[in-house]
């Protein structure tokens, strides 16, 4: 029997949680769980892990779109059935990993993956994303499913990855480069701690639908949602609503998150900001936040050329100039931000100087600078 809408609580199962991961582990992983000795990157996208039992597991990592159809997942299943005894996994950056327990199985798997293309010509399973190269872009919903975005997600990611494709399949950077994207300031994902981050921002204050606001919003929540205190309750034409002090609004969109009557996305107002220099591993230096280095670039669907260009400039300047093992943020800090802007050719504007709360700690309180 299936679900019975006239008796919704009948036979309802709840709180069973996820499936136990142990059901899904490939046998070689199960046998060597916790016994791994070391690993090697054999070539871009191919890893081998060696166990103290002497067993080896080979992993082939391929790029994933994150947004994928059941047709595509079934194709992944076909490949996993054919080469990997029906096992497959995803990574924390939405790549797909196929594992085999014998080196002889590696080549047929790679050849199979390589030849698969979408009707439009793009590769279905590009191999790469390992070592000191570029890996997948962690990203968000954008215009495909969210109501607060300032930019699209999937489209921008596709444009950037097409341009930087060779570096997904190469390992020629000083250290790994993490690019991520969030389509608004909520920063779902990893934008605040990435080497390069693409962030959707607005530049116009919200419009207020005074006619309906009182009915649709809990006004105190909208007021409390504002980080700069720009919103206050107001009566407009006899109706309860809010007033926005435009001078104090920095367009974060959090009031819209709380109140549907305050939309702010705009064809010309909304677009891309670029941040750089974040990281979250503890290797050598502690984790760091990303910093804004491009305050605004317009939305330019479908290819976002200015955004792509700015990212290329930053990435390839870093590649030329940084030392081995140096993450982008550590490089920028070592050479100094004045030199970062000079080398990358990015213009420095007052928008990049912090003015939120304890901003003072980001100003230069020393005479140590480079001309």
């Amino acid at each position, binding site marked *: 029997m299936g679900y019975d809408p006239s008796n919704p609580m009948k036979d309802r*199962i709840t709180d069973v949680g996820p499936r136990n991961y142990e059901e899904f582990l490939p046998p070689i992983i199960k046998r060597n769980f916790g016994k791994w000795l070391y690993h090697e990157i054999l070539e871009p996208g191919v890893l081998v892990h060696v166990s103290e039992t002497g067993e080896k597991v080979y992993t082939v990592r391929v790029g994933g*779109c994150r947004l*994928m159809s059941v047709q595509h997942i079934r194709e992944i299943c076909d490949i996993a059935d054919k080469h990997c005894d029906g096992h*497959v996994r995803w990574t924390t950056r939405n790549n797909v990993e196929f594992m085999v327990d014998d080196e002889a199985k590696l080549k047929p798997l790679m050849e199979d993956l390589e030849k698969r293309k979408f009707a439009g010509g793009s590769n279905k399973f590009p191999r790469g994303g390992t070592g000191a190269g570029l890996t997948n872009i962690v990203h968000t919903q954008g215009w495909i499913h969210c109501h607060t975005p300032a930019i699209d997600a999937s489209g921008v990611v596709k444009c950037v990855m097409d341009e930087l494709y060779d570096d997904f399949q190469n390992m020629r950077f000083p250290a790994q480069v993490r690019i991520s994207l969030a389509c608004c300031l909520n920063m779902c994902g990893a934008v605040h701690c990435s080497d390069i981050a693409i962030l959707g921002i607005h530049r116009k204050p919200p419009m207020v639908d005074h006619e309906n606001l009182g009915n649709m919003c809990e006004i105190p929540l909208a007021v409390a949602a504002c980080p700069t205190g720009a919103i206050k309750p107001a009566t407009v034409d006899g109706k309860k609503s809010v007033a926005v002090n435009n001078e104090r609004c920095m367009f974060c969109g959090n009031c819209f998150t709380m109140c549907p009557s305050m939309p702010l996305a705009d064809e010309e107002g909304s677009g891309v900001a670029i941040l750089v220099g974040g990281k979250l591993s503890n290797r050598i230096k502690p984790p760091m936040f990303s910093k804004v280095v491009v305050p605004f670039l317009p939305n330019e669907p479908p290819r976002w050329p200015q955004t792509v260009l700015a990212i290329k400039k930053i990435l390839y300047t870093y590649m030329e100039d940084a030392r081995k093992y140096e993450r982008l943020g550590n490089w920028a800090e070592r050479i100094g931000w004045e030199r970062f802007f000079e080398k990358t050719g990015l213009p420095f504007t007052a928008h990049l100087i912090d003015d939120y709360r304890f901003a003072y700690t980001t100003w230069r309180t020393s005479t140590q600078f480079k001309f």
Partner: protein
Amino acid sequence: MAKRKTPMLDELEKGRWPSFVSDIKQEAEAREKTKVDLQTPREACDDLLGLMELSYEDKVGHWKHGGIVGVFGYGGGVIGRYCDQPEQFPGIRDFHTMRVNQPSSYFYTTEYLRQVCELWERRGSGLTNMHGSTGDIILLGTTTPQLEEVFWELTHNLKQDLGGSGSNLRTPNCCIGKARCEYACYDTQHLCHSLTMEYQDELHRPAFPYKFKFKFDGCPNGCVASIARADMSVIGTWRDDIRIDQEAVGAYVGGEFKPNAGAHSGRDWGPFDIEKEVIDLCPTHCMAWDGNKLKINNKECIRCMHCIDTMPRALRIGKDTGASILFGAKAPILEGAQMSTLTIPFMKVEEPYDEIKELIEKVWDWWAEEGRNRERLGELMQRQGFGKFLEVCGLKADPRMIHEPRSNPYIFWKEEDVAGGWERDIKEFRKKHQK
């Protein structure tokens, strides 16, 4: 079928990176032809492409604000969404997302994935996200009447629950851990699964001031980014000595083993120089190489992982392993972005995880009581102070918890800690000090 022209999206079929547009088109085509008894609009994928094209023309999204839908018994797990052009795109009039709790570190059998695909093809759009940033399998787009049907099939046939959304414990996530990594200091998968099961009620029925996330990293490399993306970050570490295989160190120096497992092999960085690449880069300068033997003054090591990452065949994590526990990471809204703050420098991580559960529950008790509406734990820690946080956790202050001591002298003291207390009489004062 009203199939809209999509010239801008068609541009995104070009290039080498896998095209989401081509993939959605292939699903649209499959839906057009399929004999499956589809329970949601056949043209859902076509209409989604149409709406995306419109957004590309307008440079603004086309989803209405919010949407409150779900399944009985739960307060979250489904993200409601309605298109703002329903007449033009009836196939995605309602297009809700269901979050499905993924297995720890995303290992799957194809049998399971095919079951999910079959269910979602019939009762949803056939589109997914593999995976959402928090970890869930995202089933992208279905109609309101299908929500209970999908949930019924998930729980009855797939033995599989929804993930979290709203002001509750969200779906926990972990790195690959001991399954396929020699750096894992504890069993991240097991802890992740155990705590997810332990706190099912907190995950499905919002009872918190705001959202709360757990993430579990096996070592300080942070492959699941717990320090940046979880209110509670559990990061593996060890407290004894790094294990050195001197012979293998020699093999690195001699060029037999590739540094960093070959991560930099796309470029000629010259022969491996242990002084330059390891000794000099150690953040505490606690290593020495005399041409023969590598020495580590482990007492001064901060376990940053650099030397181990660089010479994985020669250096191993210690044997006395456990985890550091940090709290309070969040994105910028409202008070600014935060990373998690070190709270427990070291805890053994052993089943049945009583010590860690006890800590979690102390933190939740405090935050549930004191947290304001939509105030993340990290913001409450800032508002009431780290000292208060330590008090509710029953912990003693430790210099490991700070970057540096405070520079301002605005120090709060408790009345009971000051001799004589705070009740004083101005008349007594005047006896010694004239006006």
